[in-house]
Structures are given as C-alpha cells and as structure tokens.
C-alpha cells in the first residue's frame, strides 16, 4: 500500500469517525430532550407570571441601521409573556432613521439618569424613556459594534438578568418564560440559558407574531432549515446536559448580569462575540472551581430571518468561520487541559475537531480521492464503499436532527415533510461540499481586503442571522 493510498483511506475513516461522534451526541441529545420536554410541560411556567419571586429581566436589543424593522421588533418583544421586564434598545450610532422612528413611535423623552459604566463602551449620547405605559428605554450611543452596544446595555440594565437578542428576530410569546424557568429552578448556579433559533423564512408573521409555521421555497433557505435543526437539536442538548455547551447564540441568550460583568462583558470588534463570551464564562467559572451551569433550552424558540441568496449566505458563513477561528486561537489553551473538566477534555476539542479541522480534512478528501481514483491509485472496491458510507452517515445525521425535531410538531404537512426529507438526504451531494468550500476559503480570507469591508463595520443586521451553525 502506498502512502497516498493510506492517506486516502485515513481521510475517509476520519469522515466516518466524525459522523459517528455526531451519532453518539444525537443519542444523548434524545435523552436530554425527553427529560427537558417533561420538565417544560410540567414546569408550571404560567405560575411564574403571577409569582412575585419571578426574577425581572432586561431585554437588550442592539440596533445598527434598523430603521425598517426596529419598531416591529420592539412591538414583538413587548408581546413576550413575562411579569417584569424592561426593553432596552441600544442604538449603536445608526446613520439612518432608527433613532427618530423610535422617538416618534414610542414617544420617547430624554431622561436624566446617572450613568455608571461598569463595562467599557463607546460614549453614550443620551438615554430616553417611553412616555407610553411600556417599559421601554432607549440608549443612544456612538457606534462601537454589536458587543459594544450590548455592553452599554448591560451598564444601563436595571434588572439582575439580561436577555441579549437581535433586532430582526421574532420570539415566541412564551420563549422568555421557558428560558427563565432554568434560572428559577437553579438560581444559584445557572449563569446562562441559550435559546433555540429557527429560520423564519417561509413562516407567516403578522404584527410581531408568527401566525403559521411553514417551510421556505428557495433551496438556499431550505438547506438552512435542515442545517439549523441539525445543529440546534443534534448536539446542543447533549452538550447542555454535560454542562459543556460551547455556544449561547447571539440571537437569543439570557444571562445572569453579574456573571457577564464579572467575566468582563462582551468583546468588541469580535466576529464571534457570542461564542467568545460563552467560552469565557466556561473558563472563568471552571478556573475558579465555582459551580455554574450554562443551559440550552430547546423549548424557548426565536425565529430569525436567514439569508435568502447565496452571496449573502457565503459572506455570512465566511464571517462565522472567521469568528470561530478567532475564538479557537484565543482559547486553544483550554484544549485538553484537565482544569477545564469536560469542556477542556471533551466538548471543546470535539468542537474544534468537528468545526475547524474536519472541513480541512473533508476538503482534502474531496480533492484527493477523486484525483487518486482518476490516477488509478485507489482500490475502487474499497474507496467507493467508504465514500458512500461517509455520505450515508451524513444523511443519517441530518435525519436524526429531523427525528429529534419531530416532537416539536412543526412541518407536518405531507408536502413539507417530504421536502424536508429530500433536502436532508440530498444535502450530502452539493450543499455540504459548498459549505466546506466556504469554510476553507474563510481560512485564507484577508481581513484587509476591500471586498469584506462592509462586514468589518460589525454593525448589527447587515447580515441577518447572527448565529453559528455547525454545518
């Protein structure tokens, strides 16, 4: 057996090992989801609505040039069922009408409140309060990026818990109650709760509420639905169960304010600020050997608009991958360090292997295997079954995502079920390779190149879904 031959087999086996790992996680996720569903069903979240022990929450919405949608987002957030909440919009130095639209619609008036920053942020211009009976506060500040805006929000927030979200998502009415259940049930240890993010494309939305859940038409969007389901249900419930969740999505996460401030708040100018913060929280608490929990709440759902065309999707994915690489660089010290427990020994290495190393290997595989076949170096009888097994396992994984999703009862119409299946199986031929290609491209991306200038601005919302998806 030649070296090339051996290398080819090794690549294929690596594939299979990766997929097998996902299968194991999926089985664990199944157990975790079952448990969570029971707790969620009988958690009596509605008692929280009238209980005076339900902790109050500040909801932070960073907004950069969101004039078109900001009013609707505030209205949608106002519909959240929760006894005591404050809505905190942070206008991150928008250059459009964002601020004026908020002032007009919600009759904002400037208030004099002492501003005592505990986290650094770009300067605050003014703080407003709605004169309607609506707990809305708007912070007008100079531009500093998404993380910077959330930090300013953390400084102004009145309440001990903060929810960080995007301006372009629609939350289910009970989402916040469902997320906060985890804080109520383990108040001393829970520091963060991650919500479940689903693509909004294709659904009917009326006045800030999802009125009908349906699948989108375009293939690019369909592929993302399958991807989101797989990534949010396949592994995260398992990681959460092990208290090793590597990411609390920026689109919907609830935090204990003190924990975030203690860990140093959000990093500014980071491409993956949500993942960075999550890893920092893990490191912070594990290093100090303090009990803590970072929980994933699959029943707390936020619907987010995902890119509708290929170019925007490509840019988004490349940016995410850059963010991921930045986090990996900064937290490589945690890899295989027993001080960080299961995060250091299992979840973080697996995340790096799967999200970062695997695309490289897979890319090499897609190039080397066909090339070797053409050159006649490989034994067809072995290489082809191996490749097919890898693809079948990939399909099985997508399918498991759908099976785990089944109990949530979405996409049950026959036509939809059929299309979901076709996409989850067909994804293996084409879409999967495309994502790998984008990831590989991201590795050679030069941040100074002009093409990506618009993304360096780190404004919120120029690309819709600020969420990491493991493809």
């Amino acid at each position: 057996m030649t070296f090339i031959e051996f290398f080819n087999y090794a690549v294929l086996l690596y594939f299979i090992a990766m997929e097998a790992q996902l299968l194991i996680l999926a089985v664990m996720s199944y157990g975790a989801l079952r448990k969570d569903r029971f707790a969620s069903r009988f958690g009596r979240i509605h008692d929280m609505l009238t209980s005076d022990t339900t902790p109050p929450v500040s909801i932070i919405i960073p907004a950069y040039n969101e004039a078109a949608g900001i009013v609707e987002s505030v209205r949608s957030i106002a519909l959240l069922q929760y006894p005591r909440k404050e809505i905190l919009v942070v206008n991150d130095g928008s250059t459009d009408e964002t601020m004026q639209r908020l002032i007009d619609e919600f009759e904002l008036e400037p208030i004099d409140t002492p501003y005592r920053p505990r986290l650094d942020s770009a300067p605050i211009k003014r703080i407003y309060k709605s004169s309607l009976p609506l707990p809305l506060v708007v912070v007008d500040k100079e531009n500093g990026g998404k993380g910077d805006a959330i930090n300013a929000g953390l400084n102004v927030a009145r309440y001990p818990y903060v929810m960080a979200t995007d301006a372009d998502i629609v939350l289910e009415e009970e989402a916040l109650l469902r997320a906060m259940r985890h804080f109520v049930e383990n108040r001393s240890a829970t520091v963060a709760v991650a919500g479940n993010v689903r693509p909004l494309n294709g659904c009917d939305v009326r006045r800030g509420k999802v009125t009908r859940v349906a699948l989108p038409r375009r293939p690019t969007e369909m592929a993302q639905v399958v991807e989101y389901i797989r990534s949010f249900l396949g592994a995260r419930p398992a990681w959460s169960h092990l208290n090793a969740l590597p990411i609390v999505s920026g689109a919907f996460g609830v935090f204990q304010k003190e924990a975030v401030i203690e860990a140093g708040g959000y990093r500014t100018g980071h491409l993956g600020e949500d993942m960075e913060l999550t890893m920092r929280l893990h490191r912070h608490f594990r290093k100090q050997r303090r009990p803590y929990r970072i929980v994933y709440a699959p029943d707390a759902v936020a619907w987010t608009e995902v890119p509708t065309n290929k170019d925007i999707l490509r840019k988004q994915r490349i940016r995410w991958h850059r963010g991921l690489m930045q986090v990996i660089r900064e937290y490589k010290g945690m890899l295989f360090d027993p001080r960080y427990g299961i995060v250091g020994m299992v979840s973080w290495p697996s995340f790096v292997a799967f999200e970062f190393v695997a695309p490289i290997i897979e890319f090499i595989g897609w190039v080397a295997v066909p090339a070797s076949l053409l050159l006649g170096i490989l034994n067809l009888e072995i290489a082809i079954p191996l490749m097919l097994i890898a693809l079948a396992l990939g399909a099985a994984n997508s399918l498991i995502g759908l099976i785990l999703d089944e109990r949530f009862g979405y996409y049950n119409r026959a036509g939809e079920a059929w299309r979901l299946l076709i996409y989850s199986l067909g994804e293996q031929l084409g879409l999967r390779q495309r994502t790998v290609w984008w990831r590989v491209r991201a590795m050679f991306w030069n941040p100074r190149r002009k093409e990506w200038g618009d993304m360096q601005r780190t404004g919120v919302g120029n690309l819709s879904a600020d969420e990491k998806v493991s493809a």
Partner: protein
Amino acid sequence: MSRPHVLVAEDDRVVSLLLSRSLETAGVDVTAVYDGVEAYEAGKNGDFDLAVLDQVMPGLLGAEVLHRWNREGVDIPVIVVSGLTDDDDVIKLLDMGAVDFVRKPFNVREVLARVKLQLRSKL
C-alpha cells in the same frame, strides 16, 4: 332604548369569546377584534359606548390605541385589561384617560361588573 355597543379587543381568542358571551348575556352588543391596529380602526370608524382593551396586543398596545384615539378626537371610554405590575404604568394609563383598569389574570365577573358600572345609564 337600543342595546349599548362595546368593543372588545383581546388577542386570546378563548378569552375574547368568553368575554363576548358574558357581555351579550348581560344585554350588550359586542364587536370583537383581535389586535391593536384593528381595535384602533374599529374605534375610529364605529360607534361604541365603551371599549375593553387588552394592554398587550400585537400591532398596538391597548394604551397606544387609547392614546391615538385621544389625539384624533375619538371619544370612547376605555377599560384597560392588563398584567402590568408596575404602579407607575397604571398611573400612566389612568393619566392617558382610561376610565378603569382590570388586572390580569382576571375574573370575567369583575370585568362584567366594571363594564356595567360604566354603562349604567344605558343598561
């Protein structure tokens, strides 16, 4: 005397149905709408003796509907139904001209009693 006409704006269909049924039994004509914008439009174009507005509705909040009516000279007495727990917000509501206020979760009979109180000259 004709039956008084009441606008019920409540986004929860079951609650809305229940309120409407009990009001009708009490001798009132009811028009039910399910979000803030519909409520606002209905009030502007219709002839109502009273409106029962849920505070938290899609489109416009109950208080906003009231506020806009005030601004445009639509004169309908308003009872706001709300889960607000902040006394400040209750004061703001009454400041804006709400004639009464019912806390959620509410008792249908309580709402009924308050509606009757407001309509006593017409029932």
